[in-house]
């Protein structure tokens, strides 16, 4: 059982670090924000595993939810400002 | 090990199998609609079976009812989300057009 728990811890940590790297290195603003929201949800998972349900609740509701929504709005504004007179739907979603 | 525990083990195992099948489908299916099909199986059936398997292990009735509420919420959200995603993909508007 200890081995299984250790495997779970290791997988969780590696996924969290991978998600952080992906969020920090994505150049397109909206994809970075979506990855950051996913990072916050995984962080809440870690804190649930470390017996801190209050922190997991706060992180999921305001850390990922509220600040993610604020950043999404900011990313949309930045995109509209960068190309106001070109196509109304700029297709910068090429991976 | 009682009969209830064995039943819950079987239900949990089946739920995990559905999650595994859904994620394999999300990885290997050729286009958006088949991937959506695989995803909804993992969402609704997988989580439903896991909730059913956890219900007998819950400490009291209130927690078991909360588990059921979670499943209902996820099912409603999953159905709505899948419908919206599929509608966008059918219309092929916006950045989906490639």
């Amino acid at each position: 059982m200890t081995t299984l728990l250790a495997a779970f811890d290791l997988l969780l940590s590696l996924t969290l670090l991978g998600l952080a790297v992906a969020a920090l290195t994505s150049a397109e603003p909206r994809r970075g924000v979506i990855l950051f929201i996913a990072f916050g949800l995984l962080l809440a998972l870690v804190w649930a595993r470390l017996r801190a349900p209050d922190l997991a609740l706060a992180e999921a509701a305001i850390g990922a939810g509220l600040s993610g929504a604020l950043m999404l709005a900011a990313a949309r504004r930045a995109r509209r400002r960068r190309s106001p007179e070109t196509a109304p739907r700029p297709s910068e979603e090429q991976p | 090990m009682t009969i209830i525990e064995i039943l819950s083990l079987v239900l949990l195992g089946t739920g995990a199998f559905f999650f595994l099948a859904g994620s394999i489908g999300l990885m290997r299916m050729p286009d958006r609609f088949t991937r959506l099909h695989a995803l909804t199986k993992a969402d609704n059936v997988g989580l439903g079976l896991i909730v059913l398997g956890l219900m007998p292990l819950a400490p009291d009735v209130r927690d078991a009812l909360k588990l059921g509420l979670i499943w209902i919420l996820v099912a409603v959200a999953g159905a709505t989300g899948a419908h919206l995603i599929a509608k966008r993909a059918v219309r092929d508007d916006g950045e989906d057009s490639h």
Partner: protein
Amino acid sequence: MIAYLLIITLVLMLSIVVGLVRVAIGPTPSDRMMAAQLMGTSGIGVILLLAPVVEVSALIDVALIFALLAAVAVAAFTRRRVTESGG
């Protein structure tokens, strides 16, 4: 019993990793949204399975918040796109 629950949890973590890979490689925004939905559902499953393992029954409330947040998130993403494509 606890060991069995942990094995199921590991399978669900695997499904989260698959969702992460899908979010990273795309190729379309629909795929990213689907993968995010899979990650949210698997996260709810992991939290529900962790509740008996670490013996904190308050984790069920955390899963409830996750479920609400997932519903709001999908609605928010799609609404944003509809208004944008309308003008």
